């Protein structure tokens, strides 16, 4: 049993970088079936820079209007070349299906005259099953 736990931990540690390394956010597409009033998606924002950056996660609908989703965490510092999982729980809001964009946003070089905000958005489709 102890060996199984160690093996599982090793596998988890080994798989996380494979899923997220060198990407600003993965996955960028997804379809989720849910039997509850909400659906959950786990995304992996990544920092491709050699410096720490502030990352914000936002959820928008198809018209880029903000969606009242639960994001854990929504704002965080991400170390150089690092990535971390972010859990997003999106309510269906009474609908049978919902399309949302989950966006990773950062301004890696603030306090400049013309700042560029990099925004990587994934498109996700939630289906509510009864």
């Amino acid at each position, binding site marked *: 049993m102890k060996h199984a736990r160690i093996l599982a931990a090793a596998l988890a540690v080994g798989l996380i970088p494979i899923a997220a390394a060198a990407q*600003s956010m993965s996955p*960028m597409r997804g379809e989720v079936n849910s039997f509850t009033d909400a659906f959950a998606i786990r995304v992996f924002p990544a920092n491709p*820079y050699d410096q720490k950056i502030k990352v914000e996660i936002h959820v928008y609908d198809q018209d880029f209007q903000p969606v009242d989703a639960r994001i854990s965490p929504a704002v965080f510092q991400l170390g150089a070349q690092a990535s971390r999982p972010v859990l997003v729980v999106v309510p269906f809001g009474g609908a049978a299906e919902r399309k949302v964009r989950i966006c990773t946003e950062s301004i890696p070089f603030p306090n400049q*005259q*013309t700042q*560029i905000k990099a*925004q*990587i958005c994934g498109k996700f489709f939630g289906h509510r099953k009864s």
Partner: protein
Amino acid sequence: MTLFRTAFGAALLVACLDQAALATTQNVIFNGTITATCTLVIATNGTMTVSPDLQSLSSHNSGGSAGTVTLTTTGGVSLSVDPVTTTTVPAADTTATTWTPTYSSSGTHTIAETGSATSLTAPGADVVSVNLAGTKGGSNRFASGNYQATVTLRCE
């Protein structure tokens, strides 16, 4: 009897040798799936300079420079810029400014300067140049002081 044992032993030996000589091959299958991905790495921010008539503050003006971003993608994504909503202007500037963000790309995808969304179907890497132009109409002019604007470059 001796002859029988010798013959039987030799036959067994030959049979064993034959068994050992049988080689087998087995294929090991590797699978991998890559979903659509996009990475944006901002290399430099842009710089805007003012025109001689003080009605244009732009990265296109003399002395100005575009921001540069490295894009790497598997394809199957689109690139776009958002309208500028976040600006900081000096207190002396009380007149309206129209901000126009644009981008162009060189590399795998050659994109002429545009403000519209572009589909990137092929995998590859590009250098994206991001420009921003602020303009004033009529008798309005840019004032002295610090201006700052944020352009959102989106890959989705």
